[in-house]
């Protein structure tokens, strides 16, 4: 067994000496947060082999020949999910992104998996925050963007925007891993984003009632199309509003196989969407649901999961009047499966995901539930729980070693594994930091790299 002492020097060495293939690794003396039925293991061993977790437990054996990492009382946790963000699809916000389409002939068929960049500088930054997976979702152009400083409001003019197209469907999301490899897609077509509430009203021409009618009509067209494909293909069928690509993309939606990810905020709109999903036999995920606590029992009864930012507690718009820091704890208590999103669209600030989980805990969510909300819950909601999201034998070795409680800002990740491959503990930001740490070198900073 080789013993590797983990520190800055070892991490730096990894930049150049990254193992090309997954190896056998045993992490010892770790407090293990499994996010699985085993719960928390006060002290134990995690074994990684061929990219998979092969053993987790207080008494798991260290295989012969394994590289041993002594966690020295630190914590091992599943890698966290950046849920609902744009990692891999945006570099500098003001320069644009690959998550928003404004094309009347192509909405539902928009497939985010083709626009991802494994070399994005955001990905290593996110990894250092303990993130190993991301759920990347299309954003409706009717939704408001981020506000990196206050001046975005000067061009947004406060956020009112008129109807731009009939893009009822914003497109299909994807789950990726943050290993920075070309093959970064864990699962494509994980859901169909549909804006409801004010954003939905906007794309439908200005009113919620218009959107619901248009949405139902579109689904009816898809069902007609499915029954009359042959006629449609020989142009022997009535004209349909949606393009053929969009109609095809919506087939799994009307079949209840692909969930609708409904962007929706206020209680009345949540109720409306729940009803719509019942009537149309749709599989549903709520995204936003800041007023969800007002209708938590109805959401739970419908078995519908919620993606939400636990820090949304202001009446940012008239759709968020009842938003509160207690929302996620109350949804969880009602039995709703919750996944936590981070601020600013989960891109540059995706690394704050773990702090949001801590804030959820201080506002009443049990620790294990908050952990689940950034690990196994998003994995379940998006259909990758067989692969990742918890520390269980057979799953991908997507895990992080922490100095202490990963929700605490003063805790730091010391090692990140994705599919069993240990990741370099650096980023463009770290390189910049180190270049300017000493301002008294003989040569200008440009010579330091």
């Amino acid at each position: 067994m080789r013993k590797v002492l983990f520190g800055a020097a070892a991490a730096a060495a990894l930049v150049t000496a990254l193992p090309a293939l997954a190896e056998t690794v045993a992490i010892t003396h770790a407090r293990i947060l499994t996010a699985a039925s085993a719960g928390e293991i006060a002290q134990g061993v995690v074994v990684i082999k061929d990219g998979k977790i092969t053993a987790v437990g207080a008494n798991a054996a260290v295989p012969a020949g394994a590289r041993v990492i002594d966690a020295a009382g630190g914590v091992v946790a599943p890698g966290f999910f950046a849920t609902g963000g744009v990692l891999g699809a945006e570099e500098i916000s003001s320069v644009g992104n690959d998550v928003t389409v404004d094309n009347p002939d192509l909405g539902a068929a928009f497939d985010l998996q083709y626009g991802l960049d494994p070399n994005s500088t955001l990905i290593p930054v996110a990894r250092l925050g303990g993130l190993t997976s991301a759920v990347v979702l299309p954003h409706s152009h009717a939704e408001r963007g981020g506000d990196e400083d206050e001046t975005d409001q000067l061009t947004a003019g406060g956020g009112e925007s008129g109807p731009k197209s009939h893009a009822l469907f914003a497109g299909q999301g994807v789950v990726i891993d943050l290993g920075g490899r070309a093959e970064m897609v864990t699962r494509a077509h994980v859901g169909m984003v549909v804006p409801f509430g004010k954003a939905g009203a906007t794309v439908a021409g200005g009113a919620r009632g218009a959107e619901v009618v248009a949405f139902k009509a579109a689904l009816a067209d898809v069902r007609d199309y499915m029954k009359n494909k042959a006629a449609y293909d020989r142009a022997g069928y009535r004209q349909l509003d949606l393009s053929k690509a969009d109609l095809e993309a919506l087939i799994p939606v009307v079949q209840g196989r692909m969930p609708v990810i409904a962007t929706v905020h206020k209680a009345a709109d949540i109720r409306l969407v729940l009803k719509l999903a019942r009537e149309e036999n749709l599989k549903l995920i709520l995204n936003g649901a800041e007023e969800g606590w007002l209708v938590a029992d109805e959401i739970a009864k419908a078995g519908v999961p919620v993606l939400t930012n636990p820090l949304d507690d202001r009446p940012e718009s008239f759709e968020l009047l009842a938003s509160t820091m207690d929302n996620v704890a109350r949804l969880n208590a009602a039995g709703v499966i919750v996944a936590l999103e981070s601020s600013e669209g989960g891109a540059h600030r995706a690394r704050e995901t773990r702090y949001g989980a801590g804030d959820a805990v201080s506002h009443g969510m049990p620790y294990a539930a908050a952990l689940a909300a950034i690990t196994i819950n998003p994995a379940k909601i998006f259909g990758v729980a067989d692969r990742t999201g918890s520390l269980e034998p057979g799953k991908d070795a997507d895990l992080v070693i922490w100095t202490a409680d990963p929700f605490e800002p003063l805790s730091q990740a010391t090692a990140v594994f994705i599919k069993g491959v240990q990741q370099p503990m650096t980023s463009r930001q770290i390189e910049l930091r180190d270049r300017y740490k000493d301002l008294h070198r003989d040569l200008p900073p440009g010579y330091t790299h």
Partner: protein
Amino acid sequence: MKMWTWTVAAIAAVAVSGCATTAPPAQDAHKASAPGGGTKSAQAAATPPAKPKPLLKGLDPALAANPFPSTYKALPGRPTAIVGASAFTGTGALVENATILIRDGKVEQVAAGLAAPAGYEVIDGRGKWVTPGLIDAHSHLGVYASPSIQATSDGNELTAPVTAEVWAEHSVWPQDPGFNTARVGGVTTLLVLPGSGNLIGGRGVTLRNVPARTVQDMKFPGAPYTLKMACGENPKRVYGSKGRAPSTRMGNVAGYRAAWINAADYERRWDDYRAKVEKGEKADPPKRDLAMDTLVGVLKGEILVENHCYRADEMAQMIDISKEFGYHVTAFHHAVEAYKIADLLAANDTCVATWANWWGGKLEMYDAVEANAALVDAAGGCAIIKSDDPDLIQRLNQEAAEALAAGRAAGLKISEAQAIKWITANPAKALGILNQTGTLEPGKRADVVIWDHDPFSIYARTEKVYVDGGLAYDRSDRRYQPKSDFDLGQPGEGGR
């Protein structure tokens, strides 16, 4: 002519502004026949001044230095002793088993093991942490209020690149629900600034974070005014897109310099005018200009410059401009590249109000590093963690913790007692109010926060927040959880 006279107010204003305003006595028999002439002063001094006859109200900037005075009144308080807490004093110290005595709205004493004097309300501080009230050096609460719609978008007067004449306080909506959520986060003082779309955006206003009917009821008594300036992408984008200057960074710099030239010229015209009056010469006063009044206030050192500026190279140029015209940049805001010139900023005694985590929204934010504040601090500079955001303002302590952790990860040895200054004493310095608040030193305003955990823990929440010794928020008592008018009758009733 109305300007040839004295008033008590004018005398007072003269004393403050340092600009002499004298006039010959109105009843001087020689006045009409001997205009001007330096020899008149002896005669004028010999004759007592007669009927006061000021400039028309509103025409003399010296007479209207504070036209919107603070009407702030402290919340009711009583002598209070917080006993047995861990106290970050904001001076770089952590006092264990501390007793914090509050009396007459002031910090009376902070000492370990002190028993509560008789007559004090005793708060059991065991297992709890105490800090000075947090200060946000960069907020737009009230000027970009919630809900965020066109009707509440009052922070950027984007009709000209230099709008030194506007004052943020005239846009502040005291019912912004964000003031209440910020107070829950421990913020007792905040600087509300105009936005950064303009080269010179106008005056900021320093507020006490108390529920109030008017902005005057929130104004921090005696706090100096501030001026918002902005570098970089925002002004050139806003005005370039309107097809006018500035559309480039060089256009930005030309814009600042032209504004300071105008201000210096305006100041000269008033000085000339007052000198003539002093000598008893006939003189026409310059026409008062609100924008120039503010800029001259900066040149006189009475108004502090708060400069939005991301890039290191641009900050260095802004420092040169300040030297060209003789003013000081009190703080650079955002300043995500401050770590590249931490030595220069420390030498210039310019604070850096920044974030830990925000980056990449624009190219000028691309080189941000989490350790920025820590590197500024380590270089001997004045580091500040600020929000620029109605959500982050609720968690300044967490952002400071993230910045501290990043500093430690960079190998810097920084204590929590030092890092707490980033959200207390240092922003107080940048707002010109360190002599009044920002630390728990005896005699300072009793702006005090009690936390249920170490404030550098993610689990820390405030239990009680005092402003000037008055209980402004109490997590366990609904009576001290104020709500905005806006929240009444709405779903959730403002329970945040």
